[in-house]
């Protein structure tokens, strides 16, 4: 009994000191200067732009990675081919590689000094230090989530429902739309939530690729750092608060969408 209690205290204590207290401080400190100051900080044009840019980029990254994710899951679960293991391994890379390295990688490919970058610049397309670069970086870092969440669900439902649909006259497309997609929707939903959270929270890769131009290529996370460096503490805390609120909503959403599991 004592053992159980002390374990509980240790575990909860660790969590409180490392996680709960620090994050709560943001809520406390942000409103330390009063709601008025917070509101002022929120409606700063740079802050609003950062928020808008973050959401815009996240939506695009989520859309692209969802379509890719479902397709990739179908390929990995329903097909057999040499190199499947390699494909699987590549999918893990975005989670194992440092965001700074990812930013550098994109900079090298699409930077103005590279052949690709120069060629694109001539066509009037700018990737680095511009929104498209941020989008590419965000896609990279949030790539695996939908795939990884859909794969087990797809594996579990098996192919029989799809076979039944084909004997009933459904074409491949109809089968996918009417039978497969609805069956995997819990995995897709959960994957989308995870992708969204990762996309919104990205910092390192975007730091490198965006050039951090205020009001132009600053995402909300970058705004947190830049306002900190400028000693705009209220702005910094406010942006952090917004991000923390988004994170907590994400947690709530993951609870709702997670394919039935117990803890």
């Amino acid at each position, binding site marked *: 009994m004592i053992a159980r209690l002390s374990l509980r205290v240790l575990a909860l204590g660790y969590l409180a000191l490392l996680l709960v207290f620090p994050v709560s401080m943001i809520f406390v400190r942000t409103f330390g200067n009063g709601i008025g100051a917070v509101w002022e900080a929120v409606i700063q044009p740079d802050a609003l732009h950062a928020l808008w840019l973050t959401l815009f980029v996240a939506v695009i990254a989520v859309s692209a990675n969802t379509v890719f994710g479902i397709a990739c899951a179908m390929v990995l679960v329903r097909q057999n081919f040499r190199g499947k293991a390699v494909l699987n391994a590549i999918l893990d890379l975005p989670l194992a590689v440092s965001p700074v390295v990812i930013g550098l990688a994109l900079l090298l490919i699409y930077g103005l000094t590279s052949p690709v970058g120069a060629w694109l610049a001539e066509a009037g397309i700018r990737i680095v230090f511009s929104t498209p670069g941020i989008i590419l970086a965000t896609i990279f870092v949030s790539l695996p989530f939908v795939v990884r969440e859909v794969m087990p669900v797809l594996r579990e439902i098996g192919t029989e*429902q799809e*076979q039944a649909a*084909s004997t009933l006259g459904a074409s491949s497309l109809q089968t996918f739309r009417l039978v497969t997609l*609805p069956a995997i929707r819990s995995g897709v939903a959960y994957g989308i939530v995870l992708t969204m959270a990762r996309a919104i929270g990205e910092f390192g890769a975007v730091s490198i690729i965006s050039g951090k131009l205020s009001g132009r290529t600053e995402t909300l996370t970058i705004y947190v750092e830049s306002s900190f460096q400028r000693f705009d503490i209220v702005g910094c805390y406010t942006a952090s608060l917004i991000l923390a609120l988004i994170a907590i909503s994400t947690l709530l959403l993951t609870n709702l969408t997670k394919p039935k599991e117990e803890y």
Partner: protein
Amino acid sequence: MGITAHRVSKRFGDFVALDDVSVEAPTGSLTALLGPSGSGKSTLLRVIAGLERPDSGEIFIADEDKTRMPPQKRGVGFVFQHYAAFKHMTVFENVAFGLKIRKYPKAVIRKDVHELLELVQLEGFANRYPSQLSGGQRQRMALARALAVEPEVLLLDEPFGALDARVRQELRAWLRRLHDDIHVTTILVTHDQEEAMEVADRIVLMNHGTIEQVGDPQDLYEHPASEFVMSFVGPVNRLGDTFVRPHDVEIQLHSNGSTSEAVVDHLVYLGFEVRVELTLNDGRGLWAQVTREDARQLELEPGKIVHVRMVHSKVFGEQRKSSLPHS
């Protein structure tokens, strides 16, 4: 609307699932593909449905060569062992699926689906989800779903394999009655010889990817073409080269010229029948099946000496109506 499989072969890697198999299911019949696991019966069914591609051979459905057609176009209804219910759709939507694909008007779909649900006795369940149904109910729904599109043939892959013994019995009888009503050419795959005997007009017995024998249940039971058929289709005693059905072993109290002596080892009471386990003088064992009455009249008990004679027996090659050597 008969089905013909002509010289179908299929291998999976090194494993030969079907070896030059030819089978016919006449229009309106209920044919069982019977055999142990690995005999190729499910593979053959799936080839007929278009769910597997044969390495060689043709499939004719209603005299049309459908070998190259995808399952969508073959006009087959398929029922799976584990139901393959569309879990996210209601019973109604499941059954309506094929009709919806064919873009039937809503009113027609509603009418057809309700008629079908009545046919399979699931009238009240239209708005339930498959997870709320029992196994037997799910399978009836699957049947209704397959029948909704008026298939030319109905293919059932071990449809009762996942169900309890009692539900299996009920559904077997129910399927037989259904077939008598609607007469769709049906092929049923099963490993359960009792099921095949009870339900089918014709049985195709398969083993190791080939056909052992085709015939009606009585044929297979009384005139088995091989040792495998005889052992598979009913209980059998094997004494050297001779095969005897337990109910063809007659037990008498006194010897006459043509009997052999045996000792009763053990009696097993199986309700109406009694299984009598015996050992012959030469040490070989066999068992006989007698009625309760006979067991009582003969006063059978362990240790008793009796005299047995075989009414029929078979040696493959020729048939003899003979008995064991004299004791």
